[in-house]
């Protein structure tokens, strides 16, 4: 489908945010993604996987002529994202999507721990907005966002998370803001101060769950902590892709059944327990 650029602006440094609109219905879920063809040339040849940063319903409604919108958050790291940063209002782009499996919000969850490492923050805004619309036992779900970055200039969307009512905790590797270290350290700190738990599958009750996106090493560490404490943990993986539909088999990871799974189709969101972390 074709989408139209409404706005494309630098957030800070090499980070950009693009807002796009589309005709009809998209039915995207937080954690899902699109494949975006950044221009009509053969170089770059392939489309780029981009997660939904924000999913915005038509306002006014579709029937009254409104158009659905979504945002992507990206860092200029190479040729494709460089071209993306030059796109202007009114430019038309071909996309495929929504693709893949998004985050599942458990109906028992009263506490969400959202962990974003670096650009892993991109899909977490859509997720946080979605969780903030949910209620459990007629009360709001408490949301904590842990952001881990290299240095303070890499912190993105902090105010946006706070505006939705999330508590934001920051870690920087150089200690320029917040806790010196990584967002794994933030999780460890939380676990020592206030124990987090998911309810047992039988027996009911409320509890907390972890949602994480970021570099593989970070996800592995978080998955280890979560599985050790039996906390439900979903991770979103970022892999190089060609098709985005499960056809090319290019973006595989090893899962517990010892088989390869396509991140594009069976993911990008996996339950931490599904992944064979030793083989990643």
């Amino acid at each position, binding site marked *: 489908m074709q989408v139209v650029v409404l706005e494309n602006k630098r957030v800070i440094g090499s980070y950009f945010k693009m807002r796009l609109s589309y005709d009809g219905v998209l039915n995207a879920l937080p954690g899902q993604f699109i494949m975006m063809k950044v221009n009509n040339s053969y170089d770059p040849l392939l489309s780029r996987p981009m997660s939904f940063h924000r999913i915005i319903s038509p306002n006014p409604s579709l029937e009254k002529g409104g158009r659905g919108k979504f945002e992507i958050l990206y860092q200029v790291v190479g040729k494709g994202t460089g071209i993306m940063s030059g796109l202007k209002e009114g430019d038309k782009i071909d996309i495929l999507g929504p693709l893949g499996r998004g985050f599942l919000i458990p109906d028992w969850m009263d506490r969400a721990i959202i962990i974003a490492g670096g650009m892993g923050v991109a899909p977490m805004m859509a997720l946080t907005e979605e969780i903030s619309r949910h209620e459990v036992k007629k009360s709001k779900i408490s949301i904590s966002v842990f952001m881990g970055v290299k240095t303070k200039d890499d912190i993105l969307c902090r105010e946006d998370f706070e505006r939705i009512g999330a508590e934001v905790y920051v870690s920087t590797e150089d200690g320029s803001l917040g806790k010196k270290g990584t967002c794994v350290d933030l999780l460890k700190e939380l676990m020592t101060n206030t124990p987090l738990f998911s309810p047992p599958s039988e027996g009911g009750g409320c509890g907390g769950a972890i949602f994480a996106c970021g570099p593989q090493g970070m996800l592995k560490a978080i998955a280890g902590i979560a599985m050790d404490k039996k906390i439900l943990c979903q991770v979103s993986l970022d892999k190089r892709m*060609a098709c985005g*539909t499960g056809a*090319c088999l290019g973006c595989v990871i090893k899962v517990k059944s010892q088989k390869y799974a396509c991140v594009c189709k069976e993911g990008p969101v996996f339950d931490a327990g599904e992944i064979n972390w030793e083989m990643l």
Partner: protein
Amino acid sequence: MGDVISLSVNIAGINLKNPVMVASGTFGYGEEYVPYVDLNIISAIVVKGLSITPREGNPPPRIVETSAGMLNSIGLQNIGIDSFINEKLPFLKKYNTKVIANFFGDSIDEYCEVVKRVDSVDGIHGLEMNISCPNKQEGWLEFGTNPDLTFRVVSAVRKHTKLPLIVKLSPNVTDVTIIAKAAADAGADAISLINTLSGMAIDIKTRKPKLANIVGGLSGPSIKPVALRMVWQVAKSVKLPIIGIGGIMTYEDALEFMIAGASAVQVGTANFIDPNVSEKIIHGIESYCEQNGINDINKIVGSVII
């Protein structure tokens, strides 16, 4: 004006409603693309290469983008011929498209075993034999890089099937026409070419190859001139129908292959970028015929003026 343009072609007894097929390994088992494509438009789906038992494939990273192309080292990951027949084929049979089973083996026996399983299966209209695989029993030489090995494996397979047999050639040879002739002499019904070109990419920061398998197969528009040259050479050397493959992105690309001597084409890597590309190519070919007073696409095959 008003004349009906015939786009149908016949490849080795397979009647195709148009000359545009989708290439093996770029369209899964068809179902992956159902949300985006009307499979009834495509003349034939060449399914992901099948072996006698399931294959896990190579470790990742398996793909890397290159200038106007991509390298892949998927390593022939597939669910195996039996799972294909039981789990995937019933779905494909619901569509008005021909199913061509691409297959391979590690030995002549393995090739023959696959063929024995599919020969009597309803819903498989043809076979495409991938001979770009190493022969495990005889020094790991790729079947398709040696005329003697090509002849032996194709002859052996031929004895086990009456289905139309297409042999897919590797471009990683000194003279592709010698291999094409060996396949023709061994009883192939058609030749498809080219498979991917062997290639490599290195990360200059880490100095490591970008693919875990070190080398992979190059595809995409960057290989089209090489593929076109080889199709032209083979079309002159053998009397069999030719299926042109290699970097086809547009209807103009497809027409070049047909003018060079291909009776049909396969669209590969382009499916990754635009799942509807085949439909656009078919419409483009039709418009070209209309504008150039061509009432039958077969008239263009091999019409290159030298």
